[in-house]
């Protein structure tokens, strides 16, 4: 029983293991029921491309939810940054030259995201507007700004495929996966950016002062305050970061489809929130699972192509998405991060006569009484 126990407590220490398991089961199911699609590389390359913008957004939103806040405005920031980039791409090349114009537009777009995020943060932390209201208003406002500035039409990125920015962010890299005698497989560069960003943000949340401040604020802002965390400044930084991340996701999306349209990002809101919650981040704040979000995004994005490929009617997609979301949340509560280790105690109790065994929880109670 001791080995079982240590195995379980070891498993409990691995972040986001249940989510990873759910993802494997999901892909396994698709492989069985739709082998002609899911036993081949191409679908995965396609998923890697589709998942990137919502994945990047979900990573940012994980921070926001960990702090006990919410952001509804990021879809609008996606549209705004895409438009700013497209506008700059079309209008700045006369003064700056082609290459510099693209980089300048890229920076401007990130700046626009930072500005929108900063305003959110200022309203929430300094003025005290609840984040759900401030960011709801911001969502309408920035979509409105984008539609007005864009004149209600889409803006094409002509010849963007020849630009180094395009090469750097959304080109396909050939030659990583060997493929004999057939057409080479291209890995989407944007997926590598998303992976890099996920690793970076994991370190920020779990190993940096800023991340620790966010967890304490989400846990209890009064405690954070009296222990010397600058709650207002941290929240403003948090929403600014979310704005920049949303702008980056918007840029990737715009580069991918080589066009900016003023309603870009619509429909992402609930999808991204679902990815965060499947990942196991606590809605109550205080705990955020970056790795869980990472897999959560893959789960929520792969469901639709998977279900369609298994030749079940497309009408079932939402129903199954709902089931998966509900099941993951329940799973997190029952055998989530902290409880998977306790699960081993339960197994011990089941396997031995009750009266003879002092379970860990009973010992815990005795310990508390002694003090």
């Amino acid at each position, binding site marked *: 029983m001791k080995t079982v126990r240590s195995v379980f407590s070891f498993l409990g220490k691995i972040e986001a293991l249940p989510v990873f398991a759910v993802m494997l089961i999901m892909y396994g199911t698709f492989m069985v029921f739709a082998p002609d699609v899911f036993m081949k590389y191409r679908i995965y390359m396609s998923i890697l491309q589709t998942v990137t913008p919502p994945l990047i957004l979900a990573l940012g939103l994980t921070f926001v939810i960990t702090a006990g806040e919410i952001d509804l405005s990021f879809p609008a920031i996606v549209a705004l940054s895409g438009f700013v980039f497209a506008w700059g791409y079309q209008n700045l090349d006369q003064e700056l030259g082609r290459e510099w114009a693209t980089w300048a537009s890229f920076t401007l777009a990130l700046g626009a995201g930072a500005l929108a995020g900063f305003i959110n943060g200022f309203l929430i932390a300094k003025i005290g507007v609840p984040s759900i209201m401030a960011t709801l208003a911001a969502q309408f406002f920035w979509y409105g700004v984008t539609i007005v500035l864009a004149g209600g039409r889409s803006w094409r990125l002509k010849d963007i495929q020849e630009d180094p920015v395009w090469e750097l962010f959304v080109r396909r890299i050939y030659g990583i996966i060997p493929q004999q005698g057939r057409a080479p497989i291209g890995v989407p560069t944007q997926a590598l950016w998303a992976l890099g960003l996920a690793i970076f943000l994991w*370190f920020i949340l779990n*190993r*940096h*002062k*800023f991340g*620790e*401040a966010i*967890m*304490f604020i989400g*846990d*209890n802002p*009064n*405690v*954070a*305050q*009296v*222990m*010397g*965390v600058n709650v207002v400044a941290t929240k403003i930084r948090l929403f600014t970061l979310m704005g920049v991340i949303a702008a980056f996701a918007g840029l990737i999306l715009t580069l991918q489809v080589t066009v900016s349209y003023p309603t870009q990002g619509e429909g992402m809101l609930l999808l991204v929130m679902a990815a965060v919650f499947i990942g196991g981040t*606590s809605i109550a704040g*205080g*705990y955020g699972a970056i790795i869980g979000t990472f897999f959560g995004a893959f789960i929520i994005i792969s469901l639709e192509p998977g279900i369609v490929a298994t030749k079940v009617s497309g009408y079932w997609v939402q129903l199954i998405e709902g089931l998966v979301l509900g099941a993951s949340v329940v799973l997190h509560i029952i055998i989530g991060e*902290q409880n998977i280790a306790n699960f081993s105690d339960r197994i011990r109790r089941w396997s031995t006569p009750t009266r003879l065994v002092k379970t860990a929880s009973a*010992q*815990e109670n005795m*310990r*508390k009484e002694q*003090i």
Partner: protein
Amino acid sequence: MVEKPAALQMVNIEKYFGLVHALRNINIEVGSNEIVGLIGDNGAGKSTLVKILTGVYPPSSGEFYIAGRRVNPRTYSVKRAHEYGIETVYQDKSLGEKQALWRNFFIGRQITYPFGFINVKKEKEIAQEIMLNTIGFRGRGITVNSKVNKLSGGERQGVAIGRAMHFEAELIVLDEPTVALSLKEVRKVLNFVHKIKEGGKACVYITHDMQDVYEVSDRFIIMDRGEIVASIAKADISLKALDEFLLGYSQGLKDKELA
């Protein structure tokens, strides 16, 4: 003999919250090795006073000195208070519930590598050291990785107090540390206050439990409705007399209201 300067001196401190006059003309002095019991009913302004002292709120006017150094209220903050050697143990809001213990020891003053990344290994080592030697959590199944919500009330105060001791506070503020604790746990907290005295440090002990505060304090400061109404040395008053004084005082106020 060279006198050490008073650990704390507050002069004419006033605090308004909008139109509410929360503190009126507060003058307090706490000696460098004195335990002061701050007593008062709910709403007397004790907590506001503590928050000014620990840098959470700035005072509306007045000045104060910590160990003889004048404090600039505009730049004063929780961080600055820590630098001055003031540590606070709050009744219930000293620890982040869902966070690991090692994070709770260092929140607000992490040991970091360049660029603000936390030195987890070192923080955990020191946290382990504090838990074993300062608090004495030996063989209770609590590790530095335990979450705070697994701890009992006394253990939580132990952690907060251990943290204060580790950071070598000159003045430790205990804000109602024994509320909602069992008798045994209260005992532990009181033993710690005795340790503060032995260690030559100062302490402000805030409570409305007469018995606890009488045992550990050298002097009592009594607050009511934002004002200090009395300052009595322990030698001048017995527990019974103190109790009666307080009762009589609130009785007197009631009479005044009725009249």
